[in-house]
């Protein structure tokens, strides 16, 4: 079981990330249709996000949200909010957080913004595709190339 884990499961996420990236890259280079190229771009993007999120995973860890015991509601600042007695009792009672038991939040933050930015850039790309369709009446790369007037040779 240990051998199986180390050779297969431990790297499987990375293999799939490489495969998805290859699929997306090939589609972006070789596909003829502009929308298909953008589908390839989406797949490429999720492959990168998959890589990042896979790096942040910890074995037997929980999600990066602290429980009620660790952060009592209004624990810190309400005790200090009443001026006069600065009661740090709530601080001392809080359990220690072991960083090993909580999933790494940094890749999540980076990728969360990347997804939303990704959809807005996809919107820009689709707008350009529509503009191309308005001008050339087609989304196929070869048909567009045939319609572009060549400079001196044409």
């Amino acid at each position, binding site marked *: 079981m240990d051998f199986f*884990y180390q050779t297969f*499961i431990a790297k*499987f*996420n990375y293999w*799939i990330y490489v*495969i*998805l990236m290859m*699929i*997306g890259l090939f*589609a972006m280079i070789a*596909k*003829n*249709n502009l*929308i*298909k190229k*953008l*589908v*390839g771009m*989406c*797949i490429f993007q*999720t492959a990168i*996000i*998959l890589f990042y*999120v*896979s790096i*942040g*995973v910890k*074995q*037997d*860890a*929980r*999600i*990066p*949200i602290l429980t009620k015991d660790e952060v009592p509601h209004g624990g810190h600042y309400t005790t200090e909010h009443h001026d006069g007695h600065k009661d740090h009792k709530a601080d001392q009672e809080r359990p220690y957080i072991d960083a090993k038991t909580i*999933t790494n939040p940094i*890749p*999540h933050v980076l*990728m*969360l913004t990347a*997804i*939303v930015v*990704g*959809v807005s850039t*996809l*919107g820009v790309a*689709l707008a350009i*595709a*529509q503009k191309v*369709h308005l001008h050339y009446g*087609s*989304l*196929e790369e070869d048909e567009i190339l045939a319609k572009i007037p060549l400079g001196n040779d044409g």
Partner: protein
Amino acid sequence: MIWSFDIIILIFLVITAVIALTVKDLLASSMVLGIYSFLICILWAEMGAVDVAFTEAAVGAGVSTVIMIATVFQTARKSKD
């Protein structure tokens, strides 16, 4: 993290990616890309990235699919490859 679940979803991901790129109908391609987004959303929930999963469910499977379908309706539906 549950590795068996993880592996099943990853294999499905590759299958849906290939289908989304080989289907000739662009509307079907967009819909399959939506399925791909849902699968990857499940994958992230399983890996403990709940915020990313939530964003992907709202963005990838919702808005992204809709704007893609809007473009397909405004341009051409058939693709040559």
